[in-house]
């Protein structure tokens, strides 16, 4: 929020409110917010971090604020990237022009674990593969955003965005009266319409959409049931669906009901034991055949994961130029691949300034944050890299923006990132808000909830 020494204009209103409110009242509000969250029971893990499903993630009641002008630029960038990622997916499952043009190595695409040869040549309705794109961003300057990673499969965390907002509105109605904050509560309805807009050609009448969940033992089940409820659609598990002839049906008390669109929250490999893992009990036997013959739409499309791979990430700016003929609005973080001998040498020589991550790691585990590490930690990490270089990538330490955050001794700056949610159907829509994650420890750059990170409401102020 700080623009040099100055507070960014977007925060003026909210800071004014903080100054006018006595400290004791703020403390009371903070306790109230925590109690509300506990009562609602949002205790699922964000971003597939797994682990303790009953953990309460700290909520910070100080919002993250964008002006409309700031947001417009970010919106253009996210939409641009979402369009390019979808164009890439269509391309690599069809003519693969980008590989033929030599812009991306064939091995990286075709030998990628997430590439599904089973859907080559299949055209999903509208050519859309990733219907909900979650792009993780950090801000390093007034107009400078970097993309940390893309999430093209089933990005989670949107229920946090909605719940955070609801709690803020309940606790601070006066702030919502005086500030013109763009609403996010139409997200479920937008998502429902986006999914309906990609119903298969064989669909007759109003499309029937369901949410396919692995079941209540899954750490994100709260979000699954929450979203299904908000959208007014059925939440189903594999056993509730079956294939007959050309279509998929849902068992209901009134008999079988044809399903047109499946918003799935299970991984590709579990979708259909006749196409992927034969031991999957979570999926629907024959589903992939119905999908591939055009009888049902699966969102996100099977195989969409090849676009959000950490190694493919480095090529997204090239995709934007290749498919859209535009310059990328959002920047990629420079990434050194330790599998490359030249990069490895650079990384080992500059460990003190770099952030090093495991290629297949997530949740902020197993990272090295060079500037925050001791000489011994760096030396130990260097040995790990040398043992298996291909397993590591390195990025520069970014001067992440901070946002005022309530800590034990009052308001203090803490580093934040942002995941906005972009819907792609017949139209492309970016919800004006998102999930802001905050590193609650002073100076920490790790925002993952498994590493003590919290969440904040995200505001876009109308001009």
């Amino acid at each position, binding site marked *: 929020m700080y623009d040099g020494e100055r507070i960014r204009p977007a925060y003026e209103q909210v800071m004014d409110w903080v100054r006018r409110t006595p400290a004791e009242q703020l403390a009371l509000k903070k306790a109230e917010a925590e109690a509300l969250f506990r009562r609602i029971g949002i205790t699922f893990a964000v971003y597939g971090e797994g682990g303790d499903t009953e953990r309460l993630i700290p909520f910070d009641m100080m919002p993250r604020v964008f002006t409309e002008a700031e947001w417009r630029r970010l919106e253009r960038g996210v939409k641009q990237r979402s369009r390019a990622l979808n164009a890439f997916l269509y391309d690599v499952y069809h003519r693969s022009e980008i590989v033929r043009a030599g812009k991306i190595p064939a*091995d990286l695409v*075709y*030998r990628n674990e997430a590439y599904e*040869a*089973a859907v*080559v040549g299949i055209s999903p309705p509208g050519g859309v593969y990733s219907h909900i794109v979650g792009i993780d961003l950090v801000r390093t300057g007034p107009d400078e955003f970097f993309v940390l990673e893309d999430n093209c499969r089933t990005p989670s965390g949107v229920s946090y965005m909605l719940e955070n907002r609801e709690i803020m509105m309940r606790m601070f109605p006066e702030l919502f009266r005086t500030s013109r904050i763009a609403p996010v509560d139409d997200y479920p309805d937008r998502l429902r319409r986006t999914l309906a807009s990609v119903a298969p050609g064989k669909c007759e009448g109003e499309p029937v959409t369901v949410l396919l969940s692995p079941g209540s033992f899954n750490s994100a089940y709260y979000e699954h049931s929450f979203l299904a409820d908000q959208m007014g659609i059925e939440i189903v598990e594999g056993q509730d669906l*079956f294939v*007959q*002839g050309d279509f998929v049906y849902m068992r209901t008390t009134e008999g079988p009901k044809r399903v047109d669109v499946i918003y799935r929250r299970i991984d590709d490999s579990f979708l259909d034991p*006749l196409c992927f893992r034969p031991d999957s009990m979570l999926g629907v036997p024959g589903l992939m055949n119905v999908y591939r013959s055009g009888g049902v739409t699966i969102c996100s499309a099977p195989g969409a994961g090849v676009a959000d791979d950490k190694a493919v990430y480095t090529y997204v700016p090239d995709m934007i130029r290749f498919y859209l003929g535009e310059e990328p609005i959002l920047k990629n973080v420079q990434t050194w691949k330790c599998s490359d001998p030249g990069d490895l040498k650079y990384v080992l020589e500059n460990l003190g300034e770099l952030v090093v991550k495991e290629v297949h790691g997530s949740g902020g585990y197993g990272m090295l944050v060079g500037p925050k590490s001791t000489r011994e930690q760096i030396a130990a990490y260097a040995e790990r890299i040398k043992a298996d270089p291909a397993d590591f990538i390195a990025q520069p330490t970014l001067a992440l923006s901070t946002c005022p955050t309530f800590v034990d001794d009052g308001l203090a700056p803490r580093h934040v990132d942002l995941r906005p949610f972009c819907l792609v159907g017949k139209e492309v829509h970016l919800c004006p808000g998102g999930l802001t994650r905050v590193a609650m420890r002073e100076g920490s750059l790790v925002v993952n909830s498994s590493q003590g990170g919290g969440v904040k409401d995200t505001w876009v102020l109308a001009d």
Partner: protein
Amino acid sequence: MLLNVRHTTVYGFDAPMRFVTQSHRLNPVDTAGQKIRSWSVAAEGAAFGAAFTDGAGDRITTMTVQGPVERIEIVVEGEVETFDTTGVLRGHRELISPVCYLQPTSATVPTGALLELVRATVDAARGTELARAHRFSAAVTEAIAYAPGTTHAHTTAAEAVELGQGVCQDHAHALIAMAQATGLPARYASGYLLSGEEAAEDDASHAWAEIRIEGLGWVGFDPANACCPDERYIRLGSGRDAREAAPIRGVSRGGGAEALDVRVEVAQRQQ
């Protein structure tokens, strides 16, 4: 050559099944090596649908049976005119990049005894890709003796080489793994074979490997019979391993144990 095929698969269930769903790769497509004169797949009480051609050029259909069902009989019958293309797959439209077939599956990961076989063979395999493929195929024929019942559906290529025994599935997996280990795309092909008079009946349901050779395209190699597919072969489809290329992949839910009886007859019709 004119080949007549009759392939019956009978499932018997101890206790009635609630439902059965299968994905069929049972419809051969026209290529330079085979012209389909007539073909049918039938099963009493079953619904067929969700048919399409996949990226590998295979015709896929879906069969569902709503229970309770105790017995299912699938009858495949057809007549195919075949031609000898010396193993080369021509006139076949497919979209999947050959690079995909460099990636092993759990059945074809090159480890242990298989890697040793590659090392022992690769020196003698200098020269063209085609020469290398032939050399590998011969090495597999030698390394795995035909011995039904010694391996099972989940035996890996490396395990079969270690054991030194197996059936056509093991031969094909081993050859795929060897080819991939030296950078040649390779895959599993399933189909039918007109076998000699002395052959056992279940031999007619057959499998072999296809290796991608620069300049030629996909070329079939059958280490089980130490040859390349000719006019005695009918090709049903392909995949990275036996599971992916299986003519029938199915799931039965809600019943008891399953007894399977497969009969394949391939006969040459005199013209």
